[in-house]
């Protein structure tokens, strides 16, 4: 009996028509979203340009400071370089996105004469993705 009363109340309340959101609110909201997305695209473009400059700069430094290092990968020194490249890529990922960071890592390796194996690349991508998703909880609807 009680449940029937409650259901009746619910039905009557749910039957009251609600005032819809004003039409001009849609325009205002979507304009704001458009501006925000545009701003993000611009920031990514700037980040990529900065990455390109960094790569060129680091590459020039490497060429100037180590003229005899060639492309032969010394195991100990190579691991250090891969770790350095990885750490730099993680920093880039923080301010841009995983794809940009991965491209940065490949170019930086190339300029430094470091040959990345498949495992090296997978390891770098894993660290980049960990950085991007670190601290973001699973969101459920």
């Amino acid at each position, binding site marked *: 009996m009680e449940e029937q009363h409650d259901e009746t109340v619910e039905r009557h309340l749910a039957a009251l028509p609600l005032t819809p959101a004003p039409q001009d609110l849609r325009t205002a909201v979507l304009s704001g979203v458009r501006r*925000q997305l545009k701003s993000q695209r611009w920031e990514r473009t700037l980040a990529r340009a900065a990455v390109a400059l960094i790569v060129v700069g680091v590459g020039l430094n490497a060429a100037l400071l180590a003229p005899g290092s060639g492309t032969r990968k010394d195991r100990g020194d190579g691991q250090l370089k891969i770790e350095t490249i990885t750490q730099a890529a993680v920093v880039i990922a923080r301010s841009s996105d995983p794809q940009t960071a991965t491209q940065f890592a490949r170019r930086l390796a190339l300029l430094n004469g470091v040959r990345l194996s498949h495992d090296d690349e997978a390891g770098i991508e894993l660290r980049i993705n960990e950085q991007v998703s670190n601290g973001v909880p699973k*969101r459920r609807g």
Partner: protein
Amino acid sequence: MHPLAARLARGDEAAFAELYDECADRLFAYLTAKLGSRDRAADVVQETFLRVATGRRLFRNVDNPVAYVFQIARNEAIRFTARERRGANVVVVPAELFAVENPFNQEMAELAAAALSRIDREDREFVELRIFAGLTFREISELTAIPQATVATRYRRAIQQLRPWLEKQIS
């Protein structure tokens, strides 16, 4: 991944329009009841979607985009209320929440708004989320971080407090 969520995460502008169209009316109704005014509700809807756009990459981990938007909106409403330094239990549900076509409906709307305003503020939110926002008990539980059984109990308690309104309506 939910298809709409994937598009939102990528920054697809049309996806944001779809999301808005899917939930705007319910969101606006919920916020109008919660904040006591259509103008405040409009402000918070704008803030909500700005946050949705800013944090769009988080949609990668979202199973239900609409429920997630309500979660953001609820948090924005709480922030808005704190900024305005309004007491948590003094918000009156405005009769303008309901669309009225004639004087009879107007009276019903005013009675409903008055009855809702008298319910305990925290319990009332469950009515707002269930009836105005159209969320399930499970979604409300996840949004408020309150166990589902408790949500259902408090919702029932709020509905029971509305019985006198219904009796007045019938009479």
